């Protein structure tokens, strides 16, 4: 089940918009594909993300993938809990497993992302 209130990228990140801020994570599909996640390289607070550029790395027991920013903006918070408990990205990808929160610099970018229906179609669910 894909949360209806999120926007999705083709790179399997999700965005939850709250005012001028957006929370970013990876989708359950991505987490399942990666398998047990063992390490996340988080961006630094204050870093500037550009839409679709890499902003971190997620490492599982079987693969390593780049994280692609679904929106541009300045990082205002990162999920420090992932440093010790990266498995939160597997167990609760849309909640406790969030990665970073950014101040959205171009809300227009959000329009280019997928809604739950379109993303569901992309992953064939």
């Amino acid at each position, binding site marked *: 089940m894909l949360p209806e209130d999120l926007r999705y990228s083709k790179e399997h990140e999700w965005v939850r918009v709250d005012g001028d801020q957006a929370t970013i994570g990876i989708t359950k599909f991505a987490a399942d594909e990666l398998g047990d996640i063992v390490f996340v*390289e988080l961006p630094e607070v204050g870093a500037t993300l550009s839409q679709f550029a890499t902003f971190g790395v997620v490492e599982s027991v079987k693969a*390593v993938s*780049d994280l692609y920013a679904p929106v541009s903006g300045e990082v205002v918070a990162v999920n420090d809990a992932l440093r010790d408990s990266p498995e939160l990205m597997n167990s609760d990808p849309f909640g406790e497993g969030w990665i970073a929160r950014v101040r959205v610099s171009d809300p227009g970018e959000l329009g280019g992302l997928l809604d739950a229906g379109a993303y569901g179609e992309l992953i064939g669910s």
Partner: protein
Amino acid sequence: MAYTPHTDADHARMLGAIGVASIEDLFADIPPAVRATRFALPAPMAEQEVRGELSRIAARNAVPRVSFLGAGAYRHLVPAVVEEVIGRSEFATAYTPYQPEVSQGTLQSIYEFQSLICELTGMEVASASHYDGATAAAEAALMACRLTRRDRIAISSAVHPQVRAVIRTYCSGPGIEVIEVPADLAEGGSGLTPVEAAASVLTDEVACLVAQQPNFFGGIEPMAELAEAAHAVGAQLVAHVEPTSLAVLAAPGDHGADIVTAEGQPLGIPLSYGGPYVGLMAARMASVRQMPGRLVGATRDAQGRRGYVLTLQAREQHIRREKAASNICTNQALCALAATAYLSAVGPQGLREVAELSMAQTRHTATALEEAGLAERRFGAPYFAEVAMRVPHAARRHAELAAQGIVAGYVLERDYPELGDTLLLAATELTSDEEIASLVEALEATR
């Protein structure tokens, strides 16, 4: 493992798949003018003729009767057990196995090597080794750039000139700027890296300071102060060290080094005209994901038995491709094994004796030259087992002694124009009092 060459039919299918008519067409981009068409090879020879020819060539190698040459590679006793261990057929390969976990013995030996290097350097994690000390130092500089997300490094001019050259080569590709910190080489100077000079180039754009301990001139650098200066701007200290010196000097991990590299040759590896040698690298656990090269870890198998694995492979090129921590390194398994066997054979006390005897014979060399009125120390700082001596007409006399089979150290003017008439002399536990006397005598005769 069966090896079955491709058949003509296989070739035809592969060529068809990529749309090329013949194998020759694959080389169409290479202009005929630069293609090798004829090779100037001698006529075939019988085995005994080949042996004779190779022996004739090998006899042209100049093996000195007496040598005080160090400058980065040092003649030490290699206990017979080292060659015995590395000569075992199970180990006699210089390369990481491609199905590593099948080779538990190889992985265990690498794990023990890493453990020894951590103990020696006072660091938390060591890699499975690198090509040599210079490439390890260059990898450390790149690692510091990744860790700090900066693209500028500072390096002391008292770091081995060839290590500096390799670092410059490694930095030229990614466009990393290299700033040199001039060592105090003035008349009456220390021969060390001045902390103020280092501090003056260290800014929040500099990823690391690379310093060598003991430095190229044998001098004992103020590593703790250099580390402090680097840390003050958020930069790392890369300590490039000589491994036997660690038996008597403070461990780099205790004076604030963030990454430690070394040429491992003094640990049981013969001089062999320059290689193969082995690079050592150790770091803090917090930096492990940016460490280049292979890492062996200990774990438990499904039955709870201790086992060894290649760990954190996600940093490596076969998984991370172009984003790997390094695409230009491998380990030197056989030389690392030699170092492991050496350290195990001599033990902590033996290594200390090697260092102390080397120091004693180097001091004996310097004193004998001074007392004969032939040379004087060029720098004032305390030194380990290598010393820079001012010798009038150094280059001429060095050449004259070499013709007699005596290598009077290294002519520093080759790399440091300001250090004319200065020889860098190293002695080890293998340097006899007679050899020192013959150096004095030969220098006396060339006055």
